[in-house]
């Protein structure tokens, strides 16, 4: 059943492999995370590591980076046996790692963050010069004096990459780097990855996006349930083959059934904003005089590149942020699924039942009806196909996709009149993403007014009945046409203000 071949000790060119991982096994307690996982990275290539959530991609990277000691298996770096016990040893061997969750100090500048972990005296001016030179040499432009707290996600990621490069990484491992980026930033990053790999260095791109893998990589390895099930050159593979390898032979539904683009807008308005503005703590206007009606049963897509005020607009509509000006009409309870679910939507160390009970906890009185809540939780996780052994396990034990399905299940449990959802499928695999999109559509068909923002424009078009574009805090109504929307998002189409 496995099409996996032993990685050759050397690449065809005769050079030793930049990084060779052979038959690694890792078990945490009783759970086997990796078993028979292999990866052969040739120098001068971009290597995509594909797999569903929970397939073991991140664990394999943690093994390579010295964060997890494998129970069995071998590793070689440039032909030499390699067994890092700490990230420090991995860095010394020329590896660099950028995780999905960045490890940057928000209060510090880009240069300070990059200097962290180095040695000797710290001289801000010299460090800034060094970072500027590094940025120039590597083609990753950045302002070294920018404070991380004020940097966009894209710039934070850039800082992480520069941090790795400042320690002379020649094998760069990036964990889902495009998941957090707006489409054009993602495209730019992937182009950079290609250039970087050219001169004998190598990049391991951990991703669940087939298109990214096929577009940018030379070789592709697919992990499924901790095992390498496919390893081949990208040119010999296509989306179908990769998808089959990732999820097994089960049929995959790529599209979601969607009603006509012009949804029924005769239904009552569930959310109404009139002249709404939001000014943040630093005095910047994030949402500027917005008028908006969202009708019951429609899915309204908010298209925007990063940091244009959509974050605040969604929170205003969800009742999680108070408007500085203007009036908002909304039902007393608005279901809300924020993008940072680990921080804002769930308590990782609490059980599923306790997380379910979070909803409307602020107004609950008296005793907690735990047994009734446990029953409701079980019903909800069944209805949304959340894969969990039971309602009493900790949220932390669920995969990212199941966590997101759980949050949706909770928020939609009592058919709320409105749902606000932000980057609903970020970091999820194909099947989980499909399930999430289908659940959103079902909610709308049941009469819920849905407002959705996704950094992925194609996904937004797939989901939304109607699209508005947000730039610099203002809303532009647009036609449902990909090109028009994309131009409006980056501000190159002033004539977009039509519909």
């Amino acid at each position, binding site marked *: 059943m496995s099409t996996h071949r032993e990685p050759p000790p050397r690449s065809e060119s005769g050079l030793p492999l930049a990084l060779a991982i052979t038959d690694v096994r890792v078990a945490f307690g009783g759970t086997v995370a990796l078993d028979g996982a292999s990866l052969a990275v040739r120098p001068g290539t971009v290597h995509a590591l594909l797999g569903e959530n929970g397939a073991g991609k991140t664990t394999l990277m943690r093994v390579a980076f010295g964060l997890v000691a494998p129970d069995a298996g071998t590793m070689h770096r440039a032909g030499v046996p390699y067994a890092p016990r700490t990230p420090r040893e991995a860095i010394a061997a020329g590896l660099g790692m950028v995780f999905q969750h960045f490890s940057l100090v928000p209060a510090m500048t880009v240069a300070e963050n990059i200097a962290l972990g180095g040695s000797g005296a710290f001289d801000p001016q010299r460090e800034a010069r060094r970072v500027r030179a590094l940025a120039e040499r590597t083609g990753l432009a950045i302002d070294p004096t920018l404070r991380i707290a004020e940097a966009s996600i894209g710039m934070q990621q850039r800082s992480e990459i520069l941090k790795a490069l400042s320690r002379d990484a020649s094998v760069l491992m990036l964990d889902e780097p495009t998941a957090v980026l707006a489409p054009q930033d993602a495209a730019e990053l992937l182009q950079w990855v290609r250039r970087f790999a050219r001169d004998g260095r190598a990049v391991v791109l951990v991703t669940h996006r087939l298109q990214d893998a096929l577009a940018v990589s030379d070789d592709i390895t697919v992990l499924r349930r901790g095992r390498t099930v496919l390893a081949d050159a990208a040119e010999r593979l296509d989306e179908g083959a990769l998808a089959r390898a990732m999820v097994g032979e089960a049929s995959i539904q790529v599209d979601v059934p969607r009603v006509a683009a012009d949804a029924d807008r005769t239904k009552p308005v569930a959310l109404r904003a009139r002249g709404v503005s939001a000014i943040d703590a630093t005095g910047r206007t994030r949402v500027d005089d917005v008028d908006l009606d969202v009708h019951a049963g429609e899915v309204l897509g908010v298209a925007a590149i990063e940091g244009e005020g959509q974050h605040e607009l969604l929170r205003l509509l969800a009742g999680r942020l108070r408007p500085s000006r203007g009036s908002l009409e909304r039902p007393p309870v608005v279901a809300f699924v924020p993008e940072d679910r680990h921080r*804002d939507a769930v308590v990782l160390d609490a059980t599923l039942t306790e997380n379910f009970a979070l909803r409307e906890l602020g107004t609950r009185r008296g005793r907690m009806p735990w047994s009734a809540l446990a029953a409701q939780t079980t019903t909800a996780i069944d209805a949304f196909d959340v894969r969990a052994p039971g309602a009493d396990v900790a949220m932390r034990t669920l995969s990212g996709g199941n966590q997101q399905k759980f949050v949706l299940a909770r928020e939609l449990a009592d058919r709320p009149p409105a749902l606000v959802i932000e980057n609903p499928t970020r970091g999820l695999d194909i099947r989980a993403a499909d399930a999430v999109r289908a659940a959103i559509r079902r909610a709308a068909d049941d009469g819920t007014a849905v407002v959705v923002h996704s950094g992925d424009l194609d996904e937004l078009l797939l989901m939304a009945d109607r699209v508005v574009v947000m730039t610099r805090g203002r809303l532009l109504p647009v036609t449902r046409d990909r090109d028009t929307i994309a131009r409006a998002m980056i501000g190159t189409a002033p004539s977009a203000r039509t519909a």
Partner: protein
Amino acid sequence: MTPARRAGIACVAAIGGVGALALLLAVFGYSPADGLLAFWRGSVGTSYALWSATLVRAIPLSLAGLGVALAIRGGRLNVGAEGQLLAGATAGALVAQLLGAVEGGTATGGGMSAALTTPIVLIAGALAGAAWASVAAWLRERFGVLEVISTIMLNFIAVHLVGALVRGVLQEPTRVYPQSATLAAAARLPVLVPTTRLHAGALLAITLAALLWWTLRYTALGFRVRVVGESAAAAASAGGIDVARVAVMSFAVSGALAGLAGAVEYAGVTYALYENLSPGYGYTAIAVALLARLNPLWVIASGVLFGALQAGGAAMQRDAGVPATLVQMIEAILIIAIVLVDRASRRRAAEAGT
């Protein structure tokens, strides 16, 4: 964690503790045998030590420990239990004085009945502790002053305030000793077990531990406190909880429990207010809460353990001639050892669990 595992940890900690104790005594030139014997006899080795020393000390440690545990559950570190405890004792003495429920006072022969005076003294202590803690909570919410800093400062203020009061308005009638008038016998907390010093405060501590455990586990109020402590962002966003309000409230109740510890100590043990009323109960309460893993029921067990430690330490000083400074050092080292063993075992358990 299984009870067997807990028992195992306790054994390792105990053996390590005894070893460290013997070693320290030897290093400083005292007989380890005499010292250990005195420690044993003074803590749990005799029934008098158990009922009249260890358990009596466990009462304020448990009450203040409950307070510290509640604050941490709500996401705030209350290092100010010592000051809140002194505020509670002070309020208790002040109220007793005002009601004339002190020896030589107006109410000794009649006036307000003792059955009423004792609860009023305790309630005053709890309110004073809550008020003292609320200063820190307010500074945090209004100005962002970290409670770790403000509560320590409030501890110093409380100590010196007590010092000033017992030399001023609260000084006993003869004006000789720096302490308040003695609480009238009728207003004292009753002794639970005849011929011992164990007083009704023990029942209060156990009842409040059970109540706090139940509240945290089974009520919306308690669940809000837990959620705010574990993830303030999720509490606000997903739960629609007023995080600041919950944090301030749980911090105030935390102070009330520490204040109650002070009033109970006054009404059950010392019967007078003076500067050294607490041998650092409020500080040890932090270790009590942490060792109990913030579980109110375990706080009682943990309080008894630390009560034994302090009673044994006092006996070493009294019966084996070990100087007080060395005893305090040994106590501190034992606390570190216990917390360390507990931490290490917890980390092992966590690694095995993931």
